[in-house]
């Protein structure tokens, strides 16, 4: 029988953590704070190193014998290749401006989640092997050797960062800690140390073109099922087209919008809008994924998975690309795509066929975010909207990290919400726009097994929602990111029950008065509209 502690022993709770420096405090793997290690089949599918069964909690990670060599060679290669990375390794003065800006630190209270210290985990290794002071002075210069304990620590904390870049907003040097995490994960990938939740979508995407591994006929069937729902709700039969050559626009959205609620309602909103506009667009069943989990794996993998969209645009001979509500899909497109593939010379600068607006800013990418597209439609008075259909909702808007900090999309979604809803309230200023708090589940951390971590990381966001829920009765948290839609739902369920989550275009779909539609009696969720609104719409 296991030895149980006596009451005396139990009462002696040690409230104080060990008083040792962080370098001497190895990472303690706590259940609920880490994701499962990737299965070999996913690594094999994309030809990545060291495929084998392994468990992060076990002592033997089944690393290659020369793992240190591989890690350090990879490190050296990246220092040479990315000037920004070398700079970020060198220039931090440890002022601490970033320390209390990370949602994981604010939610967990773990000092190694301070961006400065999380980066220091890797910087200390950098100093030991790549700086003269580190080589000569060792520990005195803040250097340390790469050991198995250090590697475990790097892994544990590289997957406790959502690469949201809130810390970099506050860094006086502009150090992008997200990029340090990105490189750290790249180095870990050289040893086959990714998470199952990240590598599964990567392997699926490589094979089928989308994270969920949906085959073309399944995609078609899912969209047709939504078409049936739209017909039931509005009486209007929508006829989307698939892989249609010569369409003007290729529409790309994250596959989460096809498969998981509440993303599916957002997707119904897109389709209703496009039908009402008579937009000449097509879906692709081959490039049916805007998201790119390659970004959470390596630069090369992200590049490999991204280009299918443009290859498909080329094949279908469309003029430009319209992108759905997604976060990191836009970060990849805006920040990396041009470096990888150069200007897109086979597409045209997007022009809205409805308003004539030319989206000059994307003259290289030739891709427009749907929030910008719809905001432009509303600004030009092209939509017949009945915001009172959303009167049962009190809405607040969560800025998604990537579209906010990566693109500066702040006003467009708000403009849309104000026109499709009558009750919109902002969360406190230091939790929105460029200072927005992450959902806590981005960058491939939205697995199930690390739910405690997700709840902790999302706590600062939930705390702000709780404030507006209490003061204004907020019951809907709108956003423009598929991971947000999936991740904020359980977050609200835990911290602020009574607040639902939706995409902005679900609200558009509810408010949109379509030509020839029947009297609406339900929302896009097939829930009855409150009686009063139903009568008004007669």
């Amino acid at each position, binding site marked *: 029988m296991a030895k149980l502690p006596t009451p005396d022993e139990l009462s002696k709770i040690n409230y104080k953590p060990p008083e040792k420096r962080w370098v001497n405090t190895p990472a303690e793997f706590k259940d609920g704070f880490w994701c499962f290690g990737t299965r070999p089949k996913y690594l094999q599918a994309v030809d990545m190193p060291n495929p084998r069964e392994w468990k992060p909690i076990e002592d033997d990670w089944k690393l290659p014998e020369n793992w240190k060599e591989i890690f350090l060679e990879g490190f050296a290669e990246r220092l040479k290749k990315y000037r920004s990375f070398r700079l970020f390794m060198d220039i931090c003065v440890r002022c601490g401006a970033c320390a209390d800006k990370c949602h994981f630190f604010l939610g967990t*209270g773990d000092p190694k989640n301070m961006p400065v210290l999380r980066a220091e985990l890797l910087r200390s290794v950098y100093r030991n092997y790549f700086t003269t002071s580190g080589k000569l002075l060792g520990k005195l210069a803040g250097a340390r050797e790469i050991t198995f304990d250090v590697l475990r620590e790097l892994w544990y904390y590289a997957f406790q960062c959502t690469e949201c870049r809130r810390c970099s907003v506050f860094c006086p040097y502009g150090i992008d800690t997200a990029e340090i995490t990105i490189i750290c994960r790249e180095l870990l990938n050289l040893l086959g140390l990714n998470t199952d939740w990240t590598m599964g979508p990567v392997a699926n995407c490589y094979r089928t073109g989308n994270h969920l591994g949906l085959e073309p006929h399944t995609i078609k069937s899912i969209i047709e099922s939504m078409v049936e729902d739209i017909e039931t709700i509005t009486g209007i039969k929508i006829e989307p087209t698939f892989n249609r050559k010569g369409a003007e626009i290729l529409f790309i959205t994250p596959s989460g919008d096809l*498969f*998981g609620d509440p993303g599916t309602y957002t997707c119904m909103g897109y389709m209703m809008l496009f039908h009402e506009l008579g937009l000449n667009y097509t879906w692709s069943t081959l490039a049916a994924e805007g998201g790119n989990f390659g970004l959470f794996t390596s630069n090369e993998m992200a590049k490999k998975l991204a280009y299918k969209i443009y290859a498909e645009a080329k094949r279908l001979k469309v003029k430009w690309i319209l992108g759905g509500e997604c976060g990191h899909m836009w970060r990849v497109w805006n920040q990396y795509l041009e470096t990888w593939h150069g200007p897109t010379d086979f597409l045209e600068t997007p022009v809205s066929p409805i308003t004539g607006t030319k989206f000059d800013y994307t003259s290289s990418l030739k891709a427009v975010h749907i929030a910008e597209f719809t905001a432009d439609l509303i600004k030009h008075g092209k939509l017949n909207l009945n915001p009172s259909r959303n009167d049962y909702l009190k809405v607040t808007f969560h800025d998604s990290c990537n579209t906010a900090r990566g693109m500066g999309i702040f006003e467009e979604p708000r403009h849309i919400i104000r026109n499709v809803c009558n009750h919109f309230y902002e969360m406190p200023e*230091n939790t929105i726009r460029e200072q927005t708090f992450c959902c806590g589940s981005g960058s491939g951390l939205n697995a199930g097994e690390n739910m405690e971590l997700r709840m902790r990381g999302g706590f600062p966001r939930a705390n702000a929602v709780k404030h507006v829920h209490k003061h204004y009765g907020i019951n809907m948290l709108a956003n423009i990111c598929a991971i947000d839609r999936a991740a904020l739902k*359980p977050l609200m369920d*835990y911290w602020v029950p009574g607040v639902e989550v939706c995409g902005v275009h679900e609200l558009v779909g509810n408010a949109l008065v379509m030509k020839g539609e029947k009297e609406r009696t339900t929302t896009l969720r097939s829930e009855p509209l409150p009686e009063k609104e139903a009568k008004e719409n007669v």
Partner: protein
Amino acid sequence: MGAKDLVRDASLRLIKGRGNSRERRMGLKDLIIAKKTAILKRWFDMILGTYPEETSNHLRKQADPFANPISHTISKGIEGIFSTVIEGTDIESAFPFLDNIIKLRAVQDSTPSGAIAFILLLKKAIREELKDKIHEGVIYHELLALESNIDEITLLCFDLYMKCREKVYELKANEVKNMTFRLLQRANHNL
């Protein structure tokens, strides 16, 4: 068992515990209320002391409730709990404060004892703050009764902690269900 049932049960336990000592305890109550700020500060500091040093420094300094949600939740929470335990307000009013802190601790600490230890620190804070009076021996019995009340709240904390943990497991299970919901819906539709 719903939240209201939990509160009702705990209220009953509290009322039984109070017995006839209410009037005699007034002396202690007055003493504690007079030292409310000092006790709350001591209690707050003890709770922050359960976080690593680098963290507790930040938690102490930052006053903005959105830039420092942990401190905000704890300080507001212990104030509410203090009023219930010491000033004798209805336990129902303390429920949201307890709930807020325990929700946080239930996903921060990996042990149940670590998650709910904060409530027992109130005993320690009062004992330390009223050390001299306790040594005089005049409030000893009242103190025991008060500590029994805190014990009752501790039991409520266990119930709340379990509810939080069950919620986390429910969310984990939901993640799997949500992944297959549309697929099953479609499959059912085709039957």
